[in-house]
Protein backbone atom coordinates (compact mmCIF):
# COMPACT_ATOMS: atom_id res chain seq x y z
CA UNK A 1 0.00 0.00 0.00
CA UNK A 2 1.31 3.42 -0.84
CA UNK A 3 1.44 6.27 1.64
CA UNK A 4 1.27 8.92 -1.04
CA UNK A 5 -0.02 8.59 -4.59
CA UNK A 6 0.25 11.60 -6.87
CA UNK A 7 -1.30 11.40 -10.31
CA UNK A 8 -1.28 13.79 -13.25
CA UNK A 9 -0.38 16.74 -11.03
CA UNK A 10 -0.03 20.08 -12.84
CA UNK A 11 0.64 23.63 -11.74
CA UNK A 12 0.93 26.56 -14.13
CA UNK A 13 2.16 30.06 -13.44
CA UNK A 14 2.20 33.15 -15.61
CA UNK A 15 5.63 34.50 -16.31
CA UNK A 16 5.77 37.75 -18.28
CA UNK A 17 2.14 37.28 -19.34
CA UNK A 18 2.84 33.84 -20.85
CA UNK A 19 1.60 30.73 -19.02
CA UNK A 20 4.33 28.29 -18.15
CA UNK A 21 4.08 24.90 -16.47
CA UNK A 22 6.02 24.64 -13.20
CA UNK A 23 4.76 21.10 -12.75
CA UNK A 24 3.44 19.27 -15.79
CA UNK A 25 1.48 16.00 -15.53
CA UNK A 26 3.59 14.46 -12.79
CA UNK A 27 2.70 11.07 -11.24
CA UNK A 28 4.52 9.04 -8.59
CA UNK A 29 3.92 6.87 -5.53
CA UNK A 30 5.71 6.47 -2.22
CA UNK A 31 5.37 3.26 -0.24
CA UNK A 32 5.45 2.68 3.51
CA UNK A 33 8.85 3.58 5.02
CA UNK A 34 10.21 4.23 1.55
CA UNK A 35 12.39 7.13 0.42
CA UNK A 36 11.59 8.61 -2.96
CA UNK A 37 14.02 11.26 -4.16
CA UNK A 38 13.07 14.10 -6.50
CA UNK A 39 16.14 15.29 -8.38
CA UNK A 40 16.61 17.91 -11.03
CA UNK A 41 18.26 21.23 -11.80
CA UNK A 42 17.00 24.51 -10.31
CA UNK A 43 13.62 25.47 -11.68
CA UNK A 44 12.70 21.90 -12.56
CA UNK A 45 9.68 22.01 -10.24
CA UNK A 46 11.00 20.01 -7.28
CA UNK A 47 10.03 22.51 -4.61
CA UNK A 48 6.71 23.27 -6.30
CA UNK A 49 5.84 19.57 -6.05
CA UNK A 50 6.77 19.63 -2.34
CA UNK A 51 4.49 22.60 -1.74
CA UNK A 52 1.66 21.03 -3.75
CA UNK A 53 1.90 17.76 -1.81
CA UNK A 54 1.73 19.72 1.47
CA UNK A 55 -1.21 21.84 0.24
CA UNK A 56 0.78 25.04 0.74
CA UNK A 57 -0.26 25.85 -2.82
CA UNK A 58 -3.15 24.39 -4.83
CA UNK A 59 -2.65 22.42 -8.08
CA UNK A 60 -4.44 23.25 -11.34
CA UNK A 61 -5.05 19.60 -12.11
CA UNK A 62 -4.34 16.13 -10.77
CA UNK A 63 -4.97 13.97 -7.72
CA UNK A 64 -3.14 13.55 -4.44
CA UNK A 65 -4.02 10.51 -2.37
CA UNK A 66 -2.54 10.41 1.10
CA UNK A 67 -2.92 7.28 3.24
CA UNK A 68 -5.54 6.02 0.82
CA UNK A 69 -7.81 9.07 1.01
CA UNK A 70 -8.25 12.06 -1.30
CA UNK A 71 -6.04 14.77 0.20
CA UNK A 72 -7.16 17.60 -2.09
CA UNK A 73 -10.81 17.49 -1.01
CA UNK A 74 -9.94 18.33 2.60
CA UNK A 75 -10.24 21.90 3.87
CA UNK A 76 -10.35 23.90 7.10
CA UNK A 77 -10.18 21.94 10.34
CA UNK A 78 -10.18 18.52 8.63
CA UNK A 79 -7.11 19.50 6.60
CA UNK A 80 -5.33 20.93 9.65
CA UNK A 81 -5.99 17.74 11.62
CA UNK A 82 -4.69 15.60 8.73
CA UNK A 83 -1.47 17.63 8.57
CA UNK A 84 -0.27 15.80 11.69
CA UNK A 85 0.49 12.80 9.45
CA UNK A 86 2.35 14.74 6.74
CA UNK A 87 5.25 16.91 7.81
CA UNK A 88 8.05 18.91 6.24
CA UNK A 89 11.66 19.90 6.91
CA UNK A 90 12.90 23.01 5.12
CA UNK A 91 16.25 23.78 3.54
CA UNK A 92 17.27 26.74 5.70
CA UNK A 93 16.68 25.83 9.34
CA UNK A 94 16.99 29.48 10.40
CA UNK A 95 14.29 30.71 8.01
CA UNK A 96 12.02 27.79 8.93
CA UNK A 97 11.40 29.04 12.47
CA UNK A 98 9.88 32.20 13.84
CA UNK A 99 12.93 34.35 14.70
CA UNK A 100 11.45 35.04 18.15
CA UNK A 101 10.85 31.39 19.03
CA UNK A 102 12.64 29.21 21.53
CA UNK A 103 13.36 25.53 20.95
CA UNK A 104 10.68 24.59 23.51
CA UNK A 105 8.01 26.69 21.79
CA UNK A 106 8.83 25.26 18.37
CA UNK A 107 8.29 21.73 19.70
CA UNK A 108 5.37 22.67 21.92
CA UNK A 109 3.25 23.97 19.02
CA UNK A 110 2.56 20.67 17.22
CA UNK A 111 1.95 18.83 20.52
CA UNK A 112 -0.53 21.51 21.62
CA UNK A 113 -2.28 21.97 18.26
CA UNK A 114 -2.93 18.27 17.73
CA UNK A 115 -3.73 17.61 21.38
CA UNK A 116 -0.99 15.01 21.63
CA UNK A 117 -0.02 15.79 25.21
CA UNK A 118 -1.54 17.77 28.06
CA UNK A 119 0.05 21.02 29.13
CA UNK A 120 1.65 19.38 32.16
CA UNK A 121 2.99 16.51 30.11
CA UNK A 122 4.45 18.55 27.26
CA UNK A 123 7.82 19.57 28.79
CA UNK A 124 8.63 15.88 29.26
CA UNK A 125 7.58 15.11 25.69
CA UNK A 126 9.72 17.97 24.41
CA UNK A 127 12.74 16.64 26.31
CA UNK A 128 12.09 13.16 24.87
CA UNK A 129 11.86 14.55 21.32
CA UNK A 130 15.13 16.43 21.74
CA UNK A 131 16.86 13.30 22.97
CA UNK A 132 15.34 11.30 20.11
CA UNK A 133 17.13 13.52 17.56
CA UNK A 134 20.38 13.44 19.52
CA UNK A 135 20.17 16.79 21.29
CA UNK A 136 20.56 17.68 24.94
CA UNK A 137 17.18 18.23 26.64
CA UNK A 138 18.64 21.35 28.27
CA UNK A 139 18.54 23.03 24.86
CA UNK A 140 14.77 23.55 25.23
CA UNK A 141 15.11 26.96 26.85
CA UNK A 142 17.42 28.38 24.19
CA UNK A 143 16.36 30.76 21.45
CA UNK A 144 16.40 29.39 17.91
CA UNK A 145 19.05 31.87 16.79
CA UNK A 146 21.38 30.85 19.64
CA UNK A 147 21.96 27.27 18.49
CA UNK A 148 24.07 26.01 15.58
CA UNK A 149 22.78 25.19 12.10
CA UNK A 150 23.10 21.45 12.62
CA UNK A 151 21.29 21.63 15.97
CA UNK A 152 18.57 23.72 14.34
CA UNK A 153 18.00 21.12 11.63
CA UNK A 154 17.77 18.44 14.33
CA UNK A 155 15.13 20.58 16.07
CA UNK A 156 13.30 20.84 12.73
CA UNK A 157 13.33 17.05 12.45
CA UNK A 158 12.14 16.73 16.06
CA UNK A 159 9.24 19.05 15.23
CA UNK A 160 8.41 17.01 12.14
CA UNK A 161 8.28 13.70 14.05
CA UNK A 162 6.40 15.19 17.05
CA UNK A 163 3.02 14.29 15.55
CA UNK A 164 4.12 10.79 14.44
CA UNK A 165 3.72 11.35 10.69
CA UNK A 166 3.76 8.64 8.05
CA UNK A 167 5.47 10.91 5.50
CA UNK A 168 8.00 13.73 5.81
CA UNK A 169 8.84 15.98 2.88
CA UNK A 170 12.51 16.96 3.07
CA UNK A 171 13.05 19.96 0.80
CA UNK A 172 16.83 20.22 0.35
CA UNK A 173 16.96 19.45 4.07
CA UNK A 174 20.73 18.83 4.17
CA UNK A 175 21.89 21.18 1.39
CA UNK A 176 22.57 24.14 3.68
CA UNK A 177 24.61 22.10 6.18
CA UNK A 178 28.34 21.57 6.06
CA UNK A 179 29.60 18.17 5.03
CA UNK A 180 30.34 16.62 8.44
CA UNK A 181 26.98 17.69 9.89
CA UNK A 182 25.23 16.52 6.72
CA UNK A 183 26.38 12.94 7.26
CA UNK A 184 25.10 12.91 10.85
CA UNK A 185 21.70 14.30 9.85
CA UNK A 186 21.37 11.70 7.08
CA UNK A 187 22.23 8.98 9.61
CA UNK A 188 19.52 10.33 11.94
CA UNK A 189 16.96 10.33 9.11
CA UNK A 190 17.78 6.71 8.17
CA UNK A 191 17.58 5.66 11.80
CA UNK A 192 14.18 7.33 12.26
CA UNK A 193 12.90 5.68 9.10
CA UNK A 194 13.92 2.24 10.34
CA UNK A 195 12.38 2.69 13.78
CA UNK A 196 9.26 4.76 13.11
CA UNK A 197 8.47 3.48 9.59
CA UNK A 198 8.35 6.99 8.12
CA UNK A 199 8.37 7.51 4.35
CA UNK A 200 10.41 10.40 2.93
CA UNK A 201 9.90 12.55 -0.13
CA UNK A 202 13.52 13.61 -0.42
CA UNK A 203 14.16 16.63 -2.61
CA UNK A 204 17.73 17.36 -3.59
CA UNK A 205 19.92 18.36 -6.49
CA UNK A 206 22.80 16.33 -5.01
CA UNK A 207 22.87 12.81 -6.48
CA UNK A 208 25.58 11.76 -4.01
CA UNK A 209 23.23 12.37 -1.10
CA UNK A 210 20.32 10.80 -2.95
CA UNK A 211 22.25 7.62 -3.60
CA UNK A 212 23.04 7.38 0.11
CA UNK A 213 19.45 7.60 1.35
CA UNK A 214 16.89 7.05 -1.43
CA UNK A 215 15.33 3.80 -2.58
CA UNK A 216 13.93 5.23 -5.78
CA UNK A 217 14.58 8.45 -7.68
CA UNK A 218 12.53 10.60 -10.03
CA UNK A 219 14.43 13.03 -12.24
CA UNK A 220 12.61 16.17 -13.28
CA UNK A 221 13.26 18.73 -15.95
CA UNK A 222 11.09 21.78 -16.66
CA UNK A 223 8.25 20.36 -14.58
CA UNK A 224 8.14 16.93 -16.28
CA UNK A 225 9.42 13.55 -15.17
CA UNK A 226 12.20 12.56 -17.58
CA UNK A 227 13.43 9.45 -15.81
CA UNK A 228 12.60 7.34 -12.78
CA UNK A 229 13.56 4.06 -11.18
CA UNK A 230 15.78 2.44 -8.59
CA UNK A 231 18.11 5.11 -7.21
CA UNK A 232 21.39 3.21 -7.64
CA UNK A 233 20.51 1.97 -11.11
CA UNK A 234 19.46 5.37 -12.39
CA UNK A 235 22.51 7.11 -10.94
CA UNK A 236 24.87 4.42 -12.25
CA UNK A 237 23.56 4.68 -15.81
CA UNK A 238 21.27 7.64 -16.40
CA UNK A 239 19.33 7.48 -19.66
CA UNK A 240 18.07 11.07 -19.96
CA UNK A 241 20.24 14.03 -20.92
CA UNK A 242 19.39 15.81 -17.63
CA UNK A 243 20.19 12.67 -15.64
CA UNK A 244 23.59 12.44 -17.35
CA UNK A 245 24.26 16.11 -16.71
CA UNK A 246 23.38 15.75 -13.01
CA UNK A 247 25.66 12.72 -12.63
CA UNK A 248 28.46 14.56 -14.44
CA UNK A 249 28.01 17.49 -12.05
CA UNK A 250 28.63 15.25 -9.02
CA UNK A 251 32.46 14.93 -8.88
CA UNK A 252 32.69 11.95 -6.55
CA UNK A 253 30.35 9.88 -8.71
CA UNK A 254 32.34 10.51 -11.87
CA UNK A 255 35.46 9.26 -10.12
CA UNK A 256 33.74 6.07 -8.91
CA UNK A 257 32.51 5.25 -12.40
CA UNK A 258 36.05 5.72 -13.73
CA UNK A 259 37.39 3.47 -10.97
CA UNK A 260 34.91 0.81 -11.96
CA UNK A 261 35.92 0.98 -15.62
Amino acid sequence: MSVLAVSNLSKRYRRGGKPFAAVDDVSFEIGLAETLALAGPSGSGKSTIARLVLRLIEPDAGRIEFEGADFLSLSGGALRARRARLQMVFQDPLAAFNPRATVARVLDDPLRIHGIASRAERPRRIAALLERVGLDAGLAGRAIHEISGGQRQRVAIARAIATRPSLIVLDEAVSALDVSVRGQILELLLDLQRQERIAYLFISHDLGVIRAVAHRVVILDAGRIVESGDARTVIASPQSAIGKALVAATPKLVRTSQDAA
Partner: protein
Amino acid sequence: MRQLRRFFRTPETVAGAAILVLLVAMALAAPLLFPRDPQAIAGPALLPPFQDWSLPLGTDRLGRDVLAELFHGARTSLAVGLAAAAAALLIGAAVGTLAGFAGGVIDEVLMRVTDAFQTVPSFLLALAFVSIVGPSLGVVVAAIALGAWTGPARVARAEVLSICERDYVAGARVIGMHPLEIAFREVLPNALPPVLALSSVIVAAAILTEAALSFLGLGDPNRVTWGDMIAEGRAVLRTAPYLSIFPGIALVLTVLGVYLAGEGVVESTAVRRSLS
Protein backbone atom coordinates in the same frame (compact mmCIF):
# COMPACT_ATOMS: atom_id res chain seq x y z
CA MET B 1 23.57 48.71 26.25
CA ARG B 2 25.20 49.11 22.83
CA GLN B 3 21.90 50.25 21.48
CA LEU B 4 21.49 52.80 24.25
CA ARG B 5 24.92 54.22 23.51
CA ARG B 6 24.10 54.38 19.83
CA PHE B 7 20.85 56.11 20.68
CA PHE B 8 22.63 58.84 22.64
CA ARG B 9 25.32 59.39 20.01
CA THR B 10 23.62 62.23 18.13
CA PRO B 11 22.86 65.55 19.88
CA GLU B 12 19.37 65.72 18.34
CA THR B 13 18.21 62.53 20.01
CA VAL B 14 19.78 63.57 23.31
CA ALA B 15 17.86 66.86 23.10
CA GLY B 16 14.68 65.02 22.15
CA ALA B 17 15.05 62.56 25.00
CA ALA B 18 15.78 65.39 27.46
CA ILE B 19 12.63 67.25 26.41
CA LEU B 20 10.58 64.08 26.72
CA VAL B 21 11.96 63.31 30.18
CA LEU B 22 11.20 66.89 31.25
CA LEU B 23 7.67 66.62 29.88
CA VAL B 24 7.01 63.32 31.64
CA ALA B 25 8.44 64.79 34.86
CA MET B 26 6.14 67.80 34.50
CA ALA B 27 3.13 65.59 33.93
CA LEU B 28 3.96 63.35 36.89
CA ALA B 29 4.83 66.25 39.20
CA ALA B 30 1.76 68.36 38.36
CA PRO B 31 -0.52 67.06 41.16
CA LEU B 32 2.38 67.23 43.66
CA LEU B 33 3.63 70.72 42.85
CA PHE B 34 0.19 72.16 42.11
CA PRO B 35 -2.27 70.14 44.16
CA ARG B 36 -4.95 72.81 43.81
CA ASP B 37 -7.37 72.78 40.90
CA PRO B 38 -5.43 74.53 38.09
CA GLN B 39 -8.70 76.01 36.87
CA ALA B 40 -9.32 77.79 40.20
CA ILE B 41 -8.52 81.49 40.74
CA ALA B 42 -5.09 81.91 42.29
CA GLY B 43 -4.47 85.66 42.24
CA PRO B 44 -5.25 88.96 40.49
CA ALA B 45 -6.16 88.69 36.82
CA LEU B 46 -3.57 89.27 34.09
CA LEU B 47 -0.58 89.38 36.42
CA PRO B 48 2.51 89.57 34.12
CA PRO B 49 5.15 86.86 34.48
CA PHE B 50 8.24 87.17 36.72
CA GLN B 51 6.54 89.70 39.05
CA ASP B 52 5.22 87.59 41.89
CA TRP B 53 7.36 84.51 42.68
CA SER B 54 4.42 82.55 44.05
CA LEU B 55 2.95 82.90 40.55
CA PRO B 56 6.15 82.85 38.43
CA LEU B 57 4.50 82.85 34.99
CA GLY B 58 1.72 85.22 36.02
CA THR B 59 -2.02 84.70 35.70
CA ASP B 60 -4.56 84.72 32.89
CA ARG B 61 -7.71 86.78 32.39
CA LEU B 62 -9.51 84.96 35.20
CA GLY B 63 -6.55 85.02 37.60
CA ARG B 64 -5.54 81.37 37.12
CA ASP B 65 -1.92 80.31 37.69
CA VAL B 66 -0.31 79.96 34.23
CA LEU B 67 2.52 77.69 35.45
CA ALA B 68 0.05 75.33 37.14
CA GLU B 69 -2.02 75.26 33.96
CA LEU B 70 1.10 74.54 31.93
CA PHE B 71 2.02 71.58 34.16
CA HIS B 72 -1.49 70.13 34.16
CA GLY B 73 -1.72 70.75 30.41
CA ALA B 74 1.33 68.54 29.95
CA ARG B 75 -0.66 65.70 31.49
CA THR B 76 -3.46 66.11 28.98
CA SER B 77 -1.17 66.47 25.98
CA LEU B 78 0.87 63.43 26.93
CA ALA B 79 -2.14 61.29 27.82
CA VAL B 80 -4.01 62.13 24.64
CA GLY B 81 -0.92 61.82 22.47
CA LEU B 82 0.07 58.41 23.82
CA ALA B 83 -3.46 57.00 24.02
CA ALA B 84 -4.38 58.12 20.51
CA ALA B 85 -1.13 56.79 19.06
CA ALA B 86 -1.53 53.47 20.91
CA ALA B 87 -5.10 53.12 19.63
CA ALA B 88 -4.09 54.05 16.08
CA LEU B 89 -1.19 51.58 16.06
CA LEU B 90 -3.33 48.81 17.54
CA ILE B 91 -6.16 49.26 15.04
CA GLY B 92 -3.76 49.81 12.15
CA ALA B 93 -1.64 46.76 12.94
CA ALA B 94 -4.71 44.52 13.33
CA VAL B 95 -6.37 45.74 10.12
CA GLY B 96 -3.12 45.59 8.14
CA THR B 97 -2.29 42.10 9.39
CA LEU B 98 -5.74 40.75 8.58
CA ALA B 99 -5.72 42.36 5.12
CA GLY B 100 -2.23 41.16 4.23
CA PHE B 101 -2.70 37.70 5.65
CA ALA B 102 -6.22 36.93 4.42
CA GLY B 103 -5.82 38.42 0.93
CA GLY B 104 -8.64 38.25 -1.61
CA VAL B 105 -11.97 39.88 -0.82
CA ILE B 106 -11.13 40.66 2.83
CA ASP B 107 -7.96 42.46 1.72
CA GLU B 108 -9.86 44.43 -0.92
CA VAL B 109 -12.61 45.50 1.49
CA LEU B 110 -10.25 46.47 4.31
CA MET B 111 -7.93 48.41 2.01
CA ARG B 112 -10.81 50.28 0.36
CA VAL B 113 -12.04 51.27 3.84
CA THR B 114 -8.49 52.43 4.57
CA ASP B 115 -8.52 54.44 1.33
CA ALA B 116 -11.81 56.03 2.33
CA PHE B 117 -10.41 57.12 5.69
CA GLN B 118 -7.25 58.39 4.04
CA THR B 119 -9.07 60.59 1.54
CA VAL B 120 -10.86 62.49 4.33
CA PRO B 121 -8.49 65.01 5.98
CA SER B 122 -7.88 63.58 9.44
CA PHE B 123 -8.40 66.89 11.22
CA LEU B 124 -11.82 67.40 9.60
CA LEU B 125 -12.71 63.84 10.58
CA ALA B 126 -11.72 64.51 14.20
CA LEU B 127 -13.60 67.80 14.18
CA ALA B 128 -16.77 66.20 12.85
CA PHE B 129 -16.52 63.26 15.25
CA VAL B 130 -16.08 65.40 18.36
CA SER B 131 -18.83 67.81 17.24
CA ILE B 132 -21.31 64.95 16.93
CA VAL B 133 -20.36 62.82 19.95
CA GLY B 134 -19.46 65.66 22.28
CA PRO B 135 -16.13 66.67 23.80
CA SER B 136 -14.54 64.45 26.43
CA LEU B 137 -11.05 63.02 26.75
CA GLY B 138 -12.05 59.56 25.48
CA VAL B 139 -13.89 60.98 22.48
CA VAL B 140 -10.94 63.21 21.59
CA VAL B 141 -8.61 60.20 21.73
CA ALA B 142 -10.97 58.17 19.54
CA ALA B 143 -11.37 61.06 17.09
CA ILE B 144 -7.61 61.43 16.67
CA ALA B 145 -7.05 57.67 16.38
CA LEU B 146 -9.76 57.53 13.70
CA GLY B 147 -7.64 59.68 11.41
CA ALA B 148 -4.27 58.16 12.28
CA TRP B 149 -4.65 54.37 11.94
CA THR B 150 -4.41 54.25 8.13
CA GLY B 151 -0.64 54.79 7.99
CA PRO B 152 0.17 51.90 10.36
CA ALA B 153 -2.37 49.72 8.53
CA ARG B 154 -0.61 50.21 5.19
CA VAL B 155 2.86 49.62 6.63
CA ALA B 156 1.68 46.53 8.54
CA ARG B 157 0.04 45.08 5.43
CA ALA B 158 3.16 45.52 3.31
CA GLU B 159 5.32 43.93 6.00
CA VAL B 160 2.89 41.04 6.49
CA LEU B 161 2.83 40.35 2.73
CA SER B 162 6.60 39.94 2.75
CA ILE B 163 6.64 37.83 5.93
CA CYS B 164 3.93 35.50 4.58
CA GLU B 165 6.39 34.36 1.90
CA ARG B 166 8.90 33.17 4.51
CA ASP B 167 9.40 29.52 5.35
CA TYR B 168 8.36 29.76 8.97
CA VAL B 169 4.82 30.77 8.00
CA ALA B 170 4.69 27.75 5.67
CA GLY B 171 6.09 25.71 8.57
CA ALA B 172 3.30 26.93 10.86
CA ARG B 173 0.73 25.87 8.25
CA VAL B 174 2.38 22.48 7.87
CA ILE B 175 2.02 21.72 11.58
CA GLY B 176 -1.68 22.60 11.29
CA MET B 177 -1.75 25.92 13.13
CA HIS B 178 -5.00 27.87 12.86
CA PRO B 179 -4.76 30.81 10.38
CA LEU B 180 -5.70 33.37 13.05
CA GLU B 181 -2.98 32.08 15.36
CA ILE B 182 -0.48 32.24 12.49
CA ALA B 183 -1.52 35.82 11.72
CA PHE B 184 -1.39 37.19 15.25
CA ARG B 185 1.27 35.04 16.89
CA GLU B 186 3.72 34.22 14.10
CA VAL B 187 3.36 37.11 11.65
CA LEU B 188 2.23 40.21 13.56
CA PRO B 189 5.04 40.35 16.18
CA ASN B 190 7.61 40.20 13.38
CA ALA B 191 5.81 42.84 11.33
CA LEU B 192 5.68 45.33 14.21
CA PRO B 193 9.10 47.11 14.19
CA PRO B 194 8.50 49.22 11.04
CA VAL B 195 4.96 49.96 12.26
CA LEU B 196 6.26 51.14 15.64
CA ALA B 197 8.71 53.37 13.80
CA LEU B 198 5.67 55.46 12.83
CA SER B 199 4.72 56.03 16.45
CA SER B 200 6.78 59.19 17.00
CA VAL B 201 5.15 60.94 14.06
CA ILE B 202 1.71 59.80 15.20
CA VAL B 203 2.23 60.90 18.82
CA ALA B 204 3.48 64.31 17.66
CA ALA B 205 0.55 64.72 15.26
CA ALA B 206 -1.91 63.58 17.95
CA ILE B 207 -0.64 66.19 20.41
CA LEU B 208 -0.99 68.89 17.76
CA THR B 209 -4.47 67.73 16.76
CA GLU B 210 -5.59 67.69 20.40
CA ALA B 211 -4.27 71.24 20.84
CA ALA B 212 -6.05 72.34 17.67
CA LEU B 213 -9.33 70.79 18.81
CA SER B 214 -9.03 72.48 22.20
CA PHE B 215 -8.17 75.75 20.48
CA LEU B 216 -11.46 75.49 18.60
CA GLY B 217 -13.25 74.80 21.89
CA LEU B 218 -13.76 71.08 21.23
CA GLY B 219 -11.44 69.78 23.94
CA ASP B 220 -12.51 68.25 27.22
CA PRO B 221 -13.87 71.30 29.16
CA ASN B 222 -12.94 69.78 32.52
CA ARG B 223 -9.25 69.58 31.74
CA VAL B 224 -6.59 72.18 31.20
CA THR B 225 -5.03 71.88 27.77
CA TRP B 226 -2.39 73.93 26.03
CA GLY B 227 -4.71 74.48 23.07
CA ASP B 228 -7.30 75.95 25.46
CA MET B 229 -4.70 78.24 26.98
CA ILE B 230 -3.62 79.56 23.58
CA ALA B 231 -7.26 80.17 22.64
CA GLU B 232 -7.87 81.92 25.96
CA GLY B 233 -4.84 84.15 25.47
CA ARG B 234 -5.91 85.16 21.99
CA ALA B 235 -8.45 87.67 23.33
CA VAL B 236 -5.67 89.62 25.07
CA LEU B 237 -2.93 88.89 22.55
CA ARG B 238 -1.80 92.53 22.34
CA THR B 239 -1.77 93.35 26.06
CA ALA B 240 -0.70 89.95 27.48
CA PRO B 241 0.97 87.95 24.67
CA TYR B 242 2.73 85.70 27.20
CA LEU B 243 -0.59 83.89 27.78
CA SER B 244 -0.37 82.42 24.27
CA ILE B 245 3.41 82.33 24.00
CA PHE B 246 4.12 80.04 27.00
CA PRO B 247 1.77 77.20 26.01
CA GLY B 248 2.81 77.75 22.38
CA ILE B 249 6.47 77.20 23.26
CA ALA B 250 5.56 74.17 25.37
CA LEU B 251 3.64 72.70 22.44
CA VAL B 252 6.44 73.27 19.92
CA LEU B 253 9.08 71.83 22.26
CA THR B 254 6.97 68.77 23.04
CA VAL B 255 6.27 67.92 19.40
CA LEU B 256 9.92 68.50 18.54
CA GLY B 257 11.08 66.35 21.47
CA VAL B 258 8.78 63.45 20.62
CA TYR B 259 9.83 63.58 17.00
CA LEU B 260 13.58 63.77 17.66
CA ALA B 261 13.53 61.01 20.26
CA GLY B 262 11.41 58.83 17.97
CA GLU B 263 13.79 59.36 15.07
CA GLY B 264 16.66 58.41 17.38
CA VAL B 265 15.01 55.13 18.28
CA VAL B 266 14.38 54.31 14.62
CA GLU B 267 17.95 55.21 13.64
CA SER B 268 19.56 53.13 16.38
CA THR B 269 17.43 50.06 15.58
CA ALA B 270 17.95 50.54 11.83
CA VAL B 271 21.73 50.46 12.28
CA ARG B 272 21.43 47.31 14.34
CA ARG B 273 19.36 45.69 11.64
CA SER B 274 21.73 46.44 8.81
CA LEU B 275 24.65 45.11 10.87
CA SER B 276 23.12 41.76 11.75
